[in-house]
């Protein structure tokens, strides 16, 4: 059994608390086996986060530099990062409750869709939004995810292929007109394949810049936390995870803002 599926089953014992996302969700969509770290979207409540921490504690996990796995910071869009060694594997576990660029409505629907799914993992749309990072290597996955989407509306909103968009436009002219305000690049379909392909590249660069700006906000907000971390990490080095977590929360309450502010 794959360690990330084992962990997901433990996280979701008796209740759905964790949905696999990012690289491991891409595997479950039958795209490339392309990531070695695990990431989950968690329910934003104390019981869920405490349960996940307890599971990780049993695995001997420790915190990496990041926000505490606590509702107060998760609510602000922070991410939490822990890792442990499992036989020959370095297992990294990354968590958030508010994935970037996913609306609250989309998130609610995700939780509904994940009920009863085994293993539960993000659908193509949520995963595509999460892949709009500042890393160019994530964008090919958006292109392939769009080809998995069955709704032409979703394909028009997410496709990274000039050919696919031209073909979709021919069959869905009314839908295209409706969606142009939501995705500017669609207005370039009429300019031909080369112009559209260039516009798609520029759209990717805009997305990368937008995510880089978002990350910079969190980096600035965590500057004091970064200065405090080395000493803190030595303090908690030998502690069980539950005690390390308490210590981290106590210090973070003083040093790490619950929400980054511009």
């Amino acid at each position, binding site marked *: 059994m794959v360690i990330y599926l084992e962990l997901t089953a433990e996280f979701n014992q008796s209740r759905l608390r964790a949905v696999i996302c990012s690289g491991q969700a891409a595997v479950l969509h039958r795209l*490339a*086996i392309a990531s*070695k770290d695990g990431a989950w979207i968690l329910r934003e409540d104390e019981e869920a986060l405490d349960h996940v921490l307890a599971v990780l504690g049993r695995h001997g996990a420790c915190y990496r530099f990041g926000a505490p796995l606590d509702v107060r910071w998760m609510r602000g869009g922070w991410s939490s990062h822990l890792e442990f060694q499992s036989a020959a594997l*370095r297992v990294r576990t*990354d968590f958030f409750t508010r994935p970037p660029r996913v609306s609250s409505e989309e998130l609610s629907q995700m939780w509904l869709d994940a009920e009863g799914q085994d293993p539960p993992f993000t659908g193509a749309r949520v995963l595509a939004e999460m892949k709009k990072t500042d890393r160019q290597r994530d964008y090919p996955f958006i292109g392939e995810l769009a080809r998995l989407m069955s709704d032409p509306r979703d394909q028009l909103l997410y496709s990274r292929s000039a050919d696919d968009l031209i073909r979709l436009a021919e069959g869905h002219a009314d839908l295209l007109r409706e969606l142009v305000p939501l995705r500017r690049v669609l207005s370039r379909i009429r300019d031909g394949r080369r112009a559209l392909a260039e516009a798609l590249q520029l759209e990717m660069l805009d997305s990368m810049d937008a995510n880089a700006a978002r*990350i910079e906000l969190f980096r600035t907000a965590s500057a004091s936390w970064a200065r405090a971390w*080395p000493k803190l990490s030595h303090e908690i080095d030998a502690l069980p995870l539950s005690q390390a977590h308490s210590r981290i929360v106590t210090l973070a309450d003083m040093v790490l803002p619950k929400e980054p502010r511009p």
Partner: protein
Amino acid sequence: MTDEFLSEEDLDPCNLSWEELLAWWDLGLHQAQATNDLDEHTYSHGVFRTPFHTRGRAGSSRPPACKGWRRPPTNLPRSEPAGTSLQAALFPGPAARYGPDRHHPAWAG
């Protein structure tokens, strides 16, 4: 121009049974351990993009210790000497435990 985002090998998982997918997935995770030295301080997900210090900068802080990991020459906590995992990947021992004898999906990580 062709709009191929991922190679045929990358997309091969769609041709696998569930059991085959699990086997290749687990094998891929094990093989990827070879790059642990290189990505020790990176983040694949979330809002923390860089470690809180830069390797080699004078007076920089050390990264967080992890229980059970020994400190390597570069003063970073590790569980085995530097390069061991890479050496094992380049000079593997017994044959892979999993998967049929077929081309492995390309490692796109």
